[in-house]
């Protein structure tokens, strides 16, 4: 159905992808977030791992050892507070990254070539750096306190980690904004220009309102990815859920049989938090794909 005679003549395999009439409205602005997507079956798999490993631990437990259930019950409040800390870091990093990234993205489409140049290279630099490297840079380069108008403001590790995670978020948001603006037909700019709108009016009244719904799904996808990346903060010593899990395992005397159930429980929490976001993203993508 997709082959034309010209395509077949030029290509022995009989199909040239570029000639297919495939509508990919998201191609320009979704590229920053990759093909990652959460599926419900992942959650079932994680839940199964959690239940099976808990049962195995329970069955094997010696008489002298506390049962798996009492261990889980005992440590869940602590671990869950750690998990909430991860959520806090993710929300703050997302907020900072979105505000700065939006400004950077608007810089990338500025009529001023210097601003555009800076916006482009800053975005590319942070978008193409490993998240963990950026995190280490922030941990090591930012001071533990700084002076603000005579007051000494402390900068704890978790805040440094938040900044470190906000950097790649910023770069990805910048690309989402640039991509969404560029995905609008140029006729929108021309119509606004011919009605004597200034560039600022055109951007804020015509272009950006149309971009919001195009940006929302990749932005939510980015947030889900960021949430899962917050556990990187454990590597740089922030007391979030992964660090606490390691400490709980140590406190329980390094019992190997606790390892799988505990980590599976953490996985399950992340899944339960991120999966609704992923589902909602898919729903929004479908909805807006029809409208645009």
């Amino acid at each position, binding site marked *: 159905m997709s082959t034309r005679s010209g395509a077949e003549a030029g290509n022995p395999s009989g199909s040239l992808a570029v000639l297919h009439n495939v509508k990919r409205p998201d191609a320009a602005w979704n590229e920053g977030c990759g093909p990652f997507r959460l599926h419900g079956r992942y959650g079932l798999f994680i839940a199964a791992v959690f239940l099976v490993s808990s049962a195995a631990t329970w069955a094997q437990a010696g008489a002298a050892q506390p049962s798996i259930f009492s261990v889980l019950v005992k440590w869940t409040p602590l671990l869950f507070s750690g998990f909430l800390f991860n959520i806090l870091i993710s929300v703050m990093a997302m907020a900072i990254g979105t505000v700065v990234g939006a400004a950077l993205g608007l810089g990338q489409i500025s009529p001023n070539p210097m601003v555009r140049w800076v916006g482009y290279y800053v975005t590319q630099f942070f978008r193409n750096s490993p998240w963990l490297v950026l995190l280490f840079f922030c941990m090591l380069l930012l001071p533990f306190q700084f002076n603000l108008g005579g007051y000494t403001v402390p900068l704890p590790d978790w805040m440094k980690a938040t900044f470190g995670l906000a950097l790649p978020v910023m770069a990805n948001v910048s690309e989402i904004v640039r991509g969404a603006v560029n995905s609008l037909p140029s*006729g929108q700019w021309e*119509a606004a*220009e011919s009605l004597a*709108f200034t560039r600022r009016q055109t951007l804020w*009244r015509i272009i950006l309102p149309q971009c919001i719904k195009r940006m929302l799904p990749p932005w939510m996808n980015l947030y889900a990815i960021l949430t899962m990346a917050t556990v990187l903060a454990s590597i740089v010593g922030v007391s979030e859920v992964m660090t606490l899990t390691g400490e709980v395992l140590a406190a329980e005397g390094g019992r190997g049989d606790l390892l799988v159930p505990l980590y599976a429980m953490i996985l399950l929490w992340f899944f339960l938090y991120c999966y609704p976001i992923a589902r909602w993203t898919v729903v929004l993508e479908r909805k807006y794909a029809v409208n645009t």
Partner: protein
Amino acid sequence: MTWTPDQPMVSIKNVHKSFGDLEVLKGISFDVMKGEVICIIGPSGSGKSTAIRCINALNDIDQGSILVEGQEVNAPHLDKLELRKKVGMVFQQYNLFPHKTALENIMMAPLLVLKESPADVEKHARALIKKVRLEGKEDSYPGELSGGQQQRVAIARSLAMDPDIMLFDEVTAALDPETVKEVLVTIKDLADEGMTCILVTHEMGFAREIADHIYFTDRGVIVEHGPPATFFTEAKDPRTKEFLSQIL
């Protein structure tokens, strides 16, 4: 030198424009008097659209002069916004703002650009909706309107700025044959009211009916021009003859 209505409203002299190595306009000149209706016809790629897009500075020009009510468009510090308040433009693809209703599309520019009072703007906008025969569609979004309806909203949107000149860039080219007529009727109404109009069109019958003067462009120059009565019957240039024989 101040412009007076007895001088040409638009005066185009020896305009050249290139896109990269491609010279699209190779010395175009014509004048449009107040109240005149001008049609520009010609084969695709002959520079028709570029020519009228230069009049409101959507394209800048490389050489030559375009005077709009005595104001030089090809000036280094042109006030584009002032120019565009005088020159309305309607596009082939309508280019309505899809996140705004028909009425909001029409009201936006007078509110934001001319800073007129909301009550006046709304009154004017509703009158324009009536004028383009779209009563009842005030609260429809562009996506809910047919192509012909969208194009009439686009015309009303331009008229809301009270322009002195209207530019129409192949405004019926993207429409179904059935809806072409409703848009042409709207343009005819405007022309009858004395609006100065410059149209790029492929509708020969319409051009013949509405135009005071017809220009035929080919490969970046005006090959031939004249009033419709003589243009269609007494064309002299072989290129014009060939084009007309294919179209008519």
